[in-house]
């Protein structure tokens, strides 16, 4: 590769544009042989590095302000609408509460007769009590069954242990008796 050919593809290689692999190979071979082209390429790489250090334009700051201009008027702002609706609702509730406080709006009263209301409450209480008793009863039955089962298991173990002790005791007594008889005969 000659110097002018090298210069022809130097920028393509520098910026990673499409280059034939053989051309790229010949280019780098040429750099090994030609100090001038090598220096030229290194200088361009360095210049790119310097340009690369000027990085990070804060692109967000501009468009934000930009949004507030021309396109803001054209965009349907859902969030803004929700905020406005919430604010309106709060104002209405606050206003109604204030009006009620000063007596402009009468307070809501119960339209049910007192006896009817008492009966309803009683029904609810009784119903709840019945439910409660049922739950307690079921729990007691379960508990009793558990305790009985436990007792039965414990009693069985106890009697089994007693039987074993009795057997051992009888065995010892028999040995003692046999021992005594033997000593007496002697």
């Amino acid at each position, binding site marked *: 590769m000659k110097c002018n050919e090298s210069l022809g593809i*130097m*920028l*393509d290689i520098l*910026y990673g*544009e499409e280059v034939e692999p053989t051309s790229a190979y010949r280019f780098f071979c040429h750099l090994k042989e030609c100090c001038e082209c090598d220096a030229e390429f290194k*200088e*361009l790489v*360095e*210049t*790119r590095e*310097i*340009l*690369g*250090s*000027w990085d*990070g*334009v*804060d*692109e*967000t*700051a*501009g*468009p934000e*302000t*930009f*949004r507030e*201009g*021309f*396109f803001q008027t*054209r*965009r*349907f702002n859902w969030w803004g609408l929700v905020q406005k609706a919430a604010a309106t609702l709060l104002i209405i509730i606050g206003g109604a509460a204030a009006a009620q406080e000063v007596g402009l709006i009468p307070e809501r009263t119960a339209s049910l007769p007192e006896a009817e209301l008492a009966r309803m409450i009683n029904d609810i209480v009784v119903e709840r009590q019945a439910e409660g008793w049922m739950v307690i009863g079921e729990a007691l039955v379960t508990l009793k069954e558990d305790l009985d089962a436990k007792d039965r298991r414990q009693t069985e173990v106890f009697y089994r242990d007693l039987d074993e002790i009795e057997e051992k005791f009888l065995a010892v007594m028999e040995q003692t008796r046999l021992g005594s008889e033997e000593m007496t005969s002697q």
Partner: protein
Amino acid sequence: MEKTDENLLLEAVRGDEISFTLLVNRWEKKIFGFVFRYTGNREDSQDVVQNTFIKAYSNLDKLQDPASFPAWIYRIALNECRIRFRKGKRIRSIEIPLCEGEAVQSVNSCISAVVTVTPEQVVSGREDLKRLSTAFYRLPEEQREVILMREYQGLLFREISEVLEVPLSTVKSRLYLGLKTLRRLMEETS
């Protein structure tokens, strides 16, 4: 599924403003980045970006091939930048952000905030940036534009040639000369 630029454009041409707004949302940061580096001034950039999209919106029917929207929108932005730049609103100071999330400051007041280890590096970094920005804005317009589009916008040579409506070889020669000139100008100021 996200709509393509082409789909949004077709809908926008039919009068759907929401589609155009989506398109703006998609492109405004890129265009702002380009314009900001071109003008070096935030307020000017905001105006230019706004004018760019207003012009784009009012000329949507003239865009014959929706696939060429990127080149088209860059071309409008570039023309707006040129108009702004030639009106005499030259760059006095260049805003350079120093690290992510940090407020953008002017070069003259950013020494202490440069993210470096030693004081020497702080001064060196600041001086490099200052020399770079000074040299960059002293470049001939046509060279600066090509560097901007290739280096900071990541446009391919083919795309730049489409935006500028010049042959590919012209793009390359402008870029090469731009890089060489930039280097020379930086060395002169050091």
